[in-house]
Every structure is written in structure tokens, then in C-alpha cells.
């Protein structure tokens, strides 16, 4: 059993010093790992990431973070990764990391993801170059995600996304926004590769709980949604199977 604290969309700016510091410190002993699902900053400035990194210094459990669209706003995403890494935060993108918890290996995969929409309302690679670029980025992110989850090795597999892989955790958002909030391709990638749980943020008016079509639990941990400093999830059993584990060698048509 491992306990994972998760939160997204903390949107730090220079005025946020100490906003979450004491909550983060209170985490010691209550959780084995903290994951942050992107939109760590308000405007994508390194100074904002520094304030968050400072607030995370007193925490003794491993912290794994990905970035969200806000963190890309100033094209300083690489510098933000560096600021966080300098503070011992495992800041990843299109990659995975393994942390040891009670002798178990926990693989955490982190990919930002993108929009594109869900069944019945998806963007496709057709038409103007701008539309094609939008659809292609969504597809590339899903391919990258699938590759990362398949490659990751651990007793537990946790997936961090910024955008949502499912519609169910968007309930409460305006439907017109769905194509900017997530993509079904992400859920398909995870279902094919298998994982224990998926955390995402980005959708402030959505709902916490959902599942992928393959049955993997999805939690929207955007701070506006969970309305706590973070939520804590206890993963009881390891090794949630994906389509390929359920029907080996069948080259599942969706994968």
C-alpha cells in the first residue's frame, strides 16, 4: 500500500509565498509521495516557480511534478524545470521516474497532454495548417504518453497529466470548452499500456472522480476542484492491467 498526495493548478505567483508551505510540511507522515499535475505557476515565470520551490523545501517525501499550459506561457518551461530540479523536485516531461516507497518501486510517468476533444467532438488533422498543428500536438502527446507508460517499470505505475484523458472528470465545465481541456487519445494510450491511477488538473470547474474506458481510476486534482491543499489517495493493490495484459497477443484494435 502506498499513499499518494496529489494536487494540480496551484498557480503560484510572487505573492503566494507560504500559501501552501505549512500544508506541504504537514504531509510528512501522512503520505509517501507528492505529485503535482502542472500549472504550478500563474504566468509561466521562473520567479513564480522559485516561490513554489521554496514552499516545498520543508517536505521530506519525494515530489514529482509536471508542467501545465500556464507554465509554458513565457517559453520559460526549461528554466522552470531547472528551478524545480534544483530544489530536489523530480520535474519531468515526456519521461518517467522511479521512487522507492516501503521497498516497492513506484514508477511515475509525466506527460503534459493536450486538448483535441472526445468522442463526437474531436479535432482532426485536416484543413488549415493551424488546425492540423493543434490536432497533431494532441496525437504526439498521446503517442509519447503511451511509449512512456509502456517503458516505465515499477510495482506501481502512476500517470501524471495536465490535460484530462476522460470527459467524466470535466463534468461541470461548459461543453464548448471540452476540446481545450483534454483528449480521449490520452485515455486510450493509458488503457493500452496499463496503469494504477491517473492524476490530472487543468479543469477548474470539473469533477474529481472518473475512470478510463478500460477501468483505470482518473482523479482531477485541480485545486479548485478538490478544494483542499491536496488530496491523499491510498493505492491498495499494485499492477493495474491494461488492454494488452488482459488480452495478450491479441493486438487490441484500439492499441
Amino acid at each position, binding site marked *: 500500500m502506498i499513499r499518494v498526495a496529489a494536487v494540480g493548478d496551484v498557480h503560484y505567483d510572487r505573492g503566494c509565498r507560504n500559501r501552501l508551505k505549512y500544508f506541504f510540511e504537514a504531509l510528512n507522515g501522512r503520505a509517501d509521495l507528492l505529485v503535482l499535475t502542472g500549472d504550478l505557476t500563474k504566468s509561466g515565470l521562473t520567479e513564480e516557480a522559485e516561490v513554489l520551490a521554496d514552499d516545498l523545501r520543508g517536505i521530506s517525501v519525494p515530489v514529482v511534478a509536471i508542467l501545465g499550459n500556464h507554465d509554458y506561457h513565457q517559453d520559460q518551461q526549461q528554466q522552470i524545470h531547472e528551478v524545480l530540479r534544483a530544489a530536489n523536485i523530480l520535474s519531468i516531461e515526456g519521461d518517467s521516474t522511479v521512487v522507492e516507497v516501503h521497498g516497492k518501486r513506484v514508477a511515475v510517468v509525466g506527460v503534459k497532454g493536450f486538448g483535441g476533444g472526445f468522442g463526437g467532438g474531436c479535432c482532426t488533422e485536416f484543413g488549415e495548417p493551424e488546425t492540423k498543428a493543434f490536432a497533431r500536438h494532441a496525437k504526439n502527446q498521446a503517442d509519447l504518453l503511451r511509449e512512456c507508460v509502456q517503458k516505465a517499470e515499477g510495482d506501481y505505475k502512476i500517470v501524471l497529466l495536465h490535460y484530462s484523458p476522460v470527459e467524466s472528470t470535466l463534468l461541470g465545465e461548459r461543453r464548448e470548452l471540452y476540446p481545450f481541456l483534454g483528449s480521449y487519445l490520452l485515455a486510450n494510450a493509458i488503457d493500452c499500456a496499463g496503469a494504477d491511477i491517473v492524476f490530472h488538473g487543468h479543469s*477548474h470547474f470539473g469533477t474529481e472522480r472518473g475512470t478510463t474506458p478500460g477501468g483505470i481510476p482518473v482523479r482531477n486534482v485541480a485545486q479548485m476542484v478538490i478544494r483542499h491543499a491536496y488530496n*491523499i489517495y491510498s493505492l*491498495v493493490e499494485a499492477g493495474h492491467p491494461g488492454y494488452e495484459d488482459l488480452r495478450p497477443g491479441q493486438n487490441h484494435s484500439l492499441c
Partner: protein
Amino acid sequence: MSMRAIKSTTESPEMVDRFDRVLSDAIEALEESGIKYAFIGGIASGGLGRPRTTRDIDVFVRPEDAESCLRALTKHGFRTEHTDPNWLYKGFKENIMVDVIFKSKGDIYLDSEMYQRMITAEFHGKQVRLVAPEDLIIIKVIAHGEVTPGHWHDALALLLHANIDWEYLIRRARRAPRRVLSLLIYAQSNDVWVPKHAIDRLYRIVFGDSPPKSSVSEAFVVKKPQLRVISRGKHNETLVAKLRECFAEDPRVHELDIQIEIFDNKLILRGEVLTVDRREAITEVAKEVFPAYEIENQIRVSSLREPSEVEEIR
């Protein structure tokens, strides 16, 4: 908006508790969704007119918000159904029914004037948004019929107990002037005070001052072409979109979730942000973009806690 206390509208203590609980959930869902809404039906009648029993919660919304309203209720644990796509959806929780009405009988919609006239009242310690008594009177007299005589008497009770703006009532009565005129005369016959000028003016609206001047059928009258102007509603939509863009892009703000409403010269901002500074920055940006508007910043600053429980994932 004026304030007044609402008398209890339900029966047994168990029922009152349950009703309050569900009403509270409904208010939370509606407030969180940010849609425009006001309570009508029993809650409004009880609050503005006579205390009376009510077992359901009637919410009046704009047709374009009906779906969002239903989704907000679903999110807060209500079972919901698209009862009639012409005017009514429903939500249910703990045997209490929420009617989501988006077109009342006689083609009455929640329009912008009704929304601005809305009042806030306290109900068992909670703030509830109600339509103004004049609007409720119009809704009631139109809804009244053989199987629903209660509406007529609700309307009479409103004339008796509520503080009526007669100007506004007469203006809004254009939807059903004969009905409203009948109600006012009937009210007088029941010793409910109604000013004579209100009856006179409605009478003139219905029957005119003198016989029609022309006997030419309207079909033969060529109408003067009218200048096309952007309607106020469309203009406001553009202003809202413009301000939303500024909130997203201005480095002081970068907020994508602020709800914006425009009435005449007033901007109302709703939603939630993480810090007081950001709340202030929003007012600052709004003032710069629309210096001529009065800004009412109703944005809340969120407060956080540690989670009290751990969710087990199996």
C-alpha cells in the same frame, strides 16, 4: 437588491431538514456553475407573499443555461432528467424535486431586466435569489388555470404583502395585460389596496383612449425600413468576450475562470481566485478596459484545508 426574511415553507421537522439540505445543495450547485438563475414557485411565493407549503424547488434559468444547470445538479449528486425540452428539466435528491424551468407559461423567459430586479432574501440562514414580486405576479397570473387556482391566490398574496413597483408591474404586464388588469380589479373587490392609476393605465393599454383612428388593415401598411443596429445583448456579449480575453492575457491577472455580467453601466464579476492581490488586480484591469462602467467585484478568495480523509483506490 432588497433583503427580507422568508417564513418556513414546509411541514414536518424531518421534511424541513431534508428540504433545507437539498435546497442548500441546489444553491451550491447553481452558485458554483455561475449561471444566471432565480427561484420562483413556492420558495419565492413563500418569501414574498404568503407563507405556504412547498415540496419542490423551482429554479428559473435562461434556455441557454438549462443544460449547464442540469449538469451542475448532476455534479452535486442530483438524479436529473430532460423532462420536456420545450420548457422543463428536473433534478431529484432525497425525494425532493428541483424543477429547472427555462420557459414559463405564456413564453416568459428569465430576461436581463428580470435578472437585474431580482432580490436576495434569507432562507434558514442561507441567501437565496428570488425574482422580483412584480415578475412573480406576471408569471403566476399567466400560469393560473382551472387545475392550478393556487397561482391566482399566490398573485393576490403578493399584491397584499409585497412592496410593488407599479410602474414596473404595468410595463411588464404587456405580456398579459387583460390577465393582470383582471387580477388588479379582483384584488380591489377583495379589499386589497391597488392604486387607481395602475388600473387606469392598464385599462388604456388594453382598450385604448378612443376608437381606432384608421380602418385600413395593417396588411396594406408599408412599414418604413428600420436601421439595423447591433442589439444591446449582442453588444454586451462582445464586451464580455473582450474583457475575458484581457483577464486571460494581462500579466497581472492570467485568470480564465472569471464570470462577467454586464447591465447598463455596471459590470458584475463573479468566481474564485487564490489570493486577495489577484482579486484586486482583476478590478484594476476591468477599470482600465471599461473606465465608464461601475465595477462590482463579487469574486471570492478561496481558502484551503488539509484533507480530512484518504481515498482508498482498489
